[in-house]
């Protein structure tokens, strides 16, 4: 059964071209679009990002990704291949994300994006959030399963 789950997960990663095609929203910076605990489904086969899309940006070394909306899209005029430069802003934030990007980089590029949000399922990720923020939930449910499988 574990191998079946692994196969499904790897197939989804291949199909969507994203390292993590299902994620849980963990910040309130996109309310009321996405609330904490929503499951978002990603797709990473875009050629270009357009304004209005919702890229998930995960910088190397950061513990958490950012799910914000692209509000400005430019093309890098100094590189020979037209690379996109994108600026994002959360729907619930007043200012754009320039201050949250790594210092020295006022824009993000396609390589920082692990996928665009294409679908979502509300509320389903709340248990995963709870488990991440308090490992006691996992220990408790594991203990309960062990006890239940012996006793019942």
């Amino acid at each position, binding site marked *: 059964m574990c191998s079946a789950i692994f196969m499904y997960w790897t197939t989804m990663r291949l199909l969507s071209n994203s390292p993590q095609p299902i994620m849980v929203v963990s910040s309130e910076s996109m309310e*009321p679009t996405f609330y904490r605990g929503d499951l978002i489904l990603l797709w990473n086969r875009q050629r270009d990002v357009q*304004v209005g899309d919702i890229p998930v940006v995960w910088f190397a070394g950061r513990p958490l990704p950012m799910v914000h909306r692209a509000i400005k899209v430019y093309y890098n005029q100094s590189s020979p291949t037209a690379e996109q430069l994108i600026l994002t802003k959360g729907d619930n*934030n007043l200012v754009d994300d*320039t201050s949250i990007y790594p210092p020295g980089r006022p824009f993000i590029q396609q390589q920082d994006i692990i996928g665009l949000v294409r679908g979502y399922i509300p509320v389903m990720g709340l248990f995963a959030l709870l488990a991440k923020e308090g490992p006691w939930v996992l220990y408790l449910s594991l203990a309960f399963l062990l006890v239940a499988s012996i006793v019942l």
Partner: protein
Amino acid sequence: MHSALVRVQNVFGFFTTVAFTVAAVIALSSFIHPQTPSATIQLRNVQVVKGRPHYYSYKKEEYAHIKFDLDADLSTLFNWNTKQVFLYIKAIYPSTKPNEPASEAIIWDAILASDSAPWNENHYIHPTPPNTKKAQPKSKATAKTKSKTKQAAESPYPRGQLHLFNQRPKYQITDISGKLQNRTDVQLELSWNAQPWVGALLWANKLDMGMWKGLRGGVSDAFDFPEIGAKKKKDLETEKGKEGYRLQAGGEQPRRAPPA
């Protein structure tokens, strides 16, 4: 097959199967609701000024302040599976290099919530048109104003219809090169992102897809960015979105950018 744990597992498995099937049916059923969105957008005024991206940066860049008129009928976008429609107007201008695609920047956005969505402070409230008479203040003014802060103010138009005149933008836009004046062939385009309760997020469709007709109109005529002008500060006020009336989520402080 006779222990309680196995029974609980079976029930839970059945629950998830049914839940996903119902969600899939709801998501697919929204495609049979007919849609006929239409919009007209016109440029009212555009000014280019010099400004800084942050208070501590030394580079001065040119910013464009674009005011527009918008008449849109998007009421058919709302069906039983719509939670909100994120509406935005973007300015598209071609690049200075011949082979590069055009740049896009959002100048205004609004979150139109459906009736089934729980109230959120970021929901767009349509401003009352300037020609209508103000309602007479009622004698029970205090009770009314208290309840008004809780529920959204009533829009003068049905949900999904917008009529904005000389609307100030929410964002002033600049180019990555810092130079924006005298750019030609700029267009304003209306677009949206319809978010369902469950299912796929869908952006504006220009082509007809079955019962869903493409957006009619929604693109302004081409105009140019003028030279730098506009001395009056009052002309350059931007619209503050509803999210601007509270502290930023996360509370990040801007860091000093290293010199280029």
